[in-house]
């Protein structure tokens, strides 16, 4: 109960401050439609045969349907919804991985994707080489990485292993290195897709602390999670997306309430 009142108070404070801050992400009337073949055609041979037989059929699938969202600088914005509702598509639009098929996505500043740690790691390379490789993957120059390197290894606490190949690392060590790189990019916008479940407890606390630190520094955070506690704790505003349509944007308490209500009418219990 005390949690509720505390977070409500926090929300009021933040709502006030967001009005004077700048807009950082604008999603204007955005639609994404995938053109999926009715049956998956994986080979060219199959494609040619089907084409000749006139059997290539496509279905339109609307992952996002005329969505409008504005996110302000320094805001922590949560997105909730069922699996396949279009949450990840939304994140991909903001991080430039996908382009909308309709509407406009406008993003101001550097976006740091925190999707999955160590996606670009190579097991044969040393920790040092991987830090550089990962850094340039995130759009930095070598010179910029020189400046960051010490800080990254400090945070990951991996000085003893930094010259050994990554295949000798434990999965926790890899996650630590990945998180350290991803959060050292000094982003304007941080994208978090349900990842704070890696590493041991101490490291989880450390990463949570870093997220708070980000928030205090005025970094906007776009957070997708199924964990309503995290959403309620962290977010200023929350959007609920269902079947590609924006259902509601509001305070965490309000949005979660609507979301849960729809779930119970569907006969599904949400934790």
């Amino acid at each position, binding site marked *: 109960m005390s949690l509720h009142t505390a977070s409500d108070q926090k929300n009021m404070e933040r709502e006030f401050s967001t009005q004077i801050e700048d807009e950082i992400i604008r999603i204007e009337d955005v639609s994404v439609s995938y053109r999926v073949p009715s049956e998956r055609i994986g080979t060219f041979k199959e494609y040619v045969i089907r084409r000749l037989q006139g059997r290539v059929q496509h279905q339109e699938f609307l992952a996002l349907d005329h969505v409008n969202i504005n996110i302000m600088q320094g805001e922590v914005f949560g997105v909730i919804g069922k699996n396949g509702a279009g949450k990840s598509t939304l994140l991909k639009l903001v*991080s430039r*991985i996908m382009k909308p098929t309709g509407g406009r996505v*406008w993003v101001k500043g550097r976006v740091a994707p925190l999707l999955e740690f160590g996606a670009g790691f*190579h097991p044969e390379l040393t920790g040092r080489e991987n830090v550089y490789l990962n850094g340039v993957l995130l759009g930095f120059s070598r010179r910029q990485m020189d400046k960051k390197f010490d800080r990254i290894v400090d945070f990951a606490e991996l000085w003893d292993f930094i010259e050994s190949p990554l295949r000798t690392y434990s999965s926790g060590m890899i996650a630590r290195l990945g998180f350290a790189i991803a959060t050292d990019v000094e982003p304007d916008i941080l994208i978090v897709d349900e990842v704070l479940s890696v590493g041991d407890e101490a490291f989880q606390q450390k990463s949570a602390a870093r997220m708070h630190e980000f928030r205090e520094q005025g970094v906007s955070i776009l957070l997708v999670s199924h964990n309503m506690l995290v959403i309620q704790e962290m977010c200023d505003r929350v959007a609920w997306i269902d079947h590609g349509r924006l259902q509601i944007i509001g305070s965490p308490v309000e949005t979660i309430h609507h979301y849960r209500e729809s779930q119970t009418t569907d006969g599904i219990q949400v934790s």
Partner: protein
Amino acid sequence: MNMETTEEIQIYDSSKQVSPALEEFREIFRYRDLVIQVVRRDILTRYKRSVLGVTWTMLNPLGTMLVLAIVFSQAFGTEFSYAAYVLNGLIAWNFFQQTTNASIAHLVWGGTLLKRIYVPRTVFAFSALGTGLFNLILSLVPLLLVMVITGVPIEPTILFLPIPILFLGMFSLGVGLLVSGLAVFYTDIAEMYQIILTAWMYLTPIIYPEEILPEQFRTLIAIFNPMYHLVRLFRAPLYYGEIPAFQETLIAGLIALVTLLIGWVVFTRRSDEFAYRI
């Protein structure tokens, strides 16, 4: 939060896109350090766990040459210094084959990455080209050695070599983009391409002197096989020790440029779909 950034604020606007082909050009320039890092990774990882290290790059074509020289040198006449000839052609061909194949492999490797973060999609073809160039330059060492041993004079025309390398590189990049772009959509393209490569190599005077071809067949190859011109241009300053005629250079250059443009445009037009096709 940006304490040390001197760069301007990046603004991304999905509605403001000049043309994908031009946009990609700008983006790849911005991400040039990534290309360098991926090339480094390729070279480092390839040699890290091998005893001979970088020397493999030199030994590999040398081995093939040795086998071919033993088998064929008598067949094509003894005055003709077959070993240097075939090695010269093989180096050009290997470069083309490795670069285009690596473009496919890199894009498939990068597939998991493309789903997670934004990087310019041509990064993979460019880094394949970079690794290919590194290997090409290394394998010039055994070639020059073989030339010295077999008594083929090394002429100052070798200074012309960057031109054919440039054209070969442009051509390989173009084909690499084209094939890798297709391979994303259809998994069997990569296998089909291997068959095409084998046929293509035998239709290019690599392991045989072009003089043995019947006249009509030679003209056909000259018309339909772009690699014929590129390999010729590559052999001229080394094996033949001459500067190729202007017309020959022009033809090879045009072939390279047109292939690169086609590959570039086709690839960048479809690359937005990669994220959900890989």
